[in-house]
C-alpha cells in the first residue's frame, strides 16, 4: 500500500514547522513518529499534499521536573516515557500506560505529542492525560497558548489545535497515588477494544478508552466514588454518558459490559 504523493518538508525548528503550516493551511499535516499518520496515509484515509516532518526537533524531546508538574516535550517517544526515572516517582501512571502502547517497534518511533494531536479515542495516552488533568502547550504564528486536556479532545480525530499550531509540550501534574490501567484487546499489540484507567490523587479519576468519539472521563463513576460508593457499586455506572462504537471487535452492549468490568478491576487494583 503506497500513500498518495505529497511534498515533503523537513522542519529544522518549531518556528519553521509553524511557518510551513501557515503557508500550506489545511493541506499540510505534521509528521512526528508517524505511527498513526502513516498507516492512515497508506490506506489513503489521509491524503495530505504537504507533509511537514518535525521528527528531528530533538529540542522538543525531554521529560523535565516542572515543580508541581512534569513537563514533557511533544516529540518525546513512548520508549522514553516508559523508561523515565522521573516519571517512575512523579507520575507512574503515565509511565505505565506508555508501556502499553503498541509494541516495542511502535514505542521506538511514536511520540506523546503525536498521539495527543492525533486524538484517537482508541489510543491509550490521550485518555491517560485526560484522567491526569494534563495541560497542553500549543504554539502558532501568534504565540503560545495552553489548553486543558478536558477541552482538547473535541471529536473523532478532532482536537482544539488550529491548522497552523504545533503542540510543543505536555504538562502532567505529579500524581503519585495508586493507579491501574486495564486494556482489553485480542492481539497483543492492538488498540484497546475498551480500556479503563483509574488514578488516585485524593479523589479518584477514571478515564475510558474507545467508549466514544473522544477519550472520556467516567464522570458518573467518579461522582459515585466521591459520594462513598464502593468500587463495585461505582463501576456499575461506567457506561453512563458513553457512546461506544460498534465494530468487528464488539457491539455497543459488549463494550458497555467491558467498561463496567474493566473499571471495577482498575478501581480495585488502584485501591479505590
Amino acid at each position, binding site marked *: *500500500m*503506497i*500513500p*498518495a*504523493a*505529497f*511534498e*515533503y518538508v*523537513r522542519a529544522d525548528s518549531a518556528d519553521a514547522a509553524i511557518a510551513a503550516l501557515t503557508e500550506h493551511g489545511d493541506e499540510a499535516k505534521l*509528521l512526528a513518529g*508517524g*505511527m498513526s499518520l*502513516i*498507516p492512515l*496515509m*497508506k490506506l489513503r484515509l489521509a491524503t495530505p499534499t504537504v*507533509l511537514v*516532518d518535525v*521528527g528531528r526537533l530533538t529540542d522538543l524531546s525531554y521529560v523535565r521536573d516542572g515543580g508541581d508538574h512534569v513537563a514533557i516535550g511533544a516529540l518525546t517517544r513512548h*520508549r522514553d516515557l516508559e523508561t523515565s526515572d522521573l516519571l517512575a516517582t512523579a507520575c507512574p501512571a503515565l509511565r505505565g500506560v506508555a508501556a502499553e502502547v*503498541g*509494541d*516495542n*517497534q*511502535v514505542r*521506538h*518511533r511514536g511520540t506523546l505529542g503525536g498521539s495527543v494531536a492525533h486524538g484517537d479515542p482508541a489510543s491509550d495516552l490521550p485518555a491517560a492525560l485526560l484522567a491526569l488533568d494534563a495541560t497542553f502547550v500549543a504554539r502558532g504564528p501568534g504565540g503560545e497558548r495552553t489548553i486543558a486536556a478536558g477541552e482538547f479532545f473535541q471529536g473523532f480525530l478532532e482536537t482544539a489545535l488550529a491548522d497552523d499550531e504545533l503542540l510543543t509540550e505536555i504538562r502532567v501534574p505529579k500524581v503519585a497515588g495508586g493507579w491501574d490501567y486495564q486494556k482489553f484487546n485480542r*492481539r*497483543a*499489540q*492492538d488498540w484497546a477494544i475498551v480500556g479503563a484507567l483509574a488514578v488516585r490523587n485524593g479523589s479518584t479519576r477514571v478515564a475510558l478508552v474507545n467508549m466514544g468519539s473522544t477519550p472520556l472521563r467516567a464522570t458518573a463513576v467518579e461522582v459515585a466514588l466521591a459520594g462513598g460508593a464502593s468500587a463495585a457499586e461505582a463501576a456499575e455506572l461506567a457506561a453512563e454518558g458513553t457512546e461506544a462504537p460498534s465494530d468487528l471487535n464488539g457491539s455497543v452492549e459488549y463494550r458497555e459490559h467491558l467498561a463496567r468490568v474493566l473499571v471495577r478491576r482498575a478501581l480495585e487494583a488502584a485501591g479505590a
Partner: protein
Amino acid sequence: MRVSITINGVEQSHDVEPRTLLVQFLREACGLTGTKVGCDTSSCGACTVLFDGESVKSCTMFAAQADGGAVTTIEGLAPSTDEMHAVQTAFHEHHGLQCGFCTAGMVMAAASFLEENPDPTEQEVRLGLEGNLCRCTGYHNIVQSVLAAAKTLQDAK
C-alpha cells in the same frame, strides 16, 4: 528527493519519491530483499529493521525519515561472513523458524529487545516480541531461541 542512509555500514544514496517507504528503499532501491513485507499495516513485524540501533517497522516509516541515519537489516546483523549473530545462531540451533517468512523480522526485533533487556524472563521475551507475528504459530521455539541467545550474549560478557 535524494535520500542517503548508511545501511549495514555502507552509505546508500538514491533518488526516490517522498512517499517511498523505508522497506521499499531497502528492497527496491538497494536490492536488500532479506527484509520482508508481511501485512503492510504495521501489525506483523516481518519488516522489522534497526534504525539507529532500535527496532522499527520499515513499512511504517518513510525513507526520508531515515535520511542521514543508520539502518541495520538482516543482511548486516552478523559480525562477519564467517560468524552469525548470537540470535541467528540460536534460531538455527533451536529451530526458531518454520516457513521462515517472519524470521528476519523476529531476529531483528529480538536483537533490539536483548539490547534493552539483556537478561529477560520467558514472559518478558513474549511481551518483547508482541509486535511480531508468526503465522506458523511457531512461537515456542522462537521464545526458546531468544532465551538461548540471551544466555550466549550474557556468557560472552
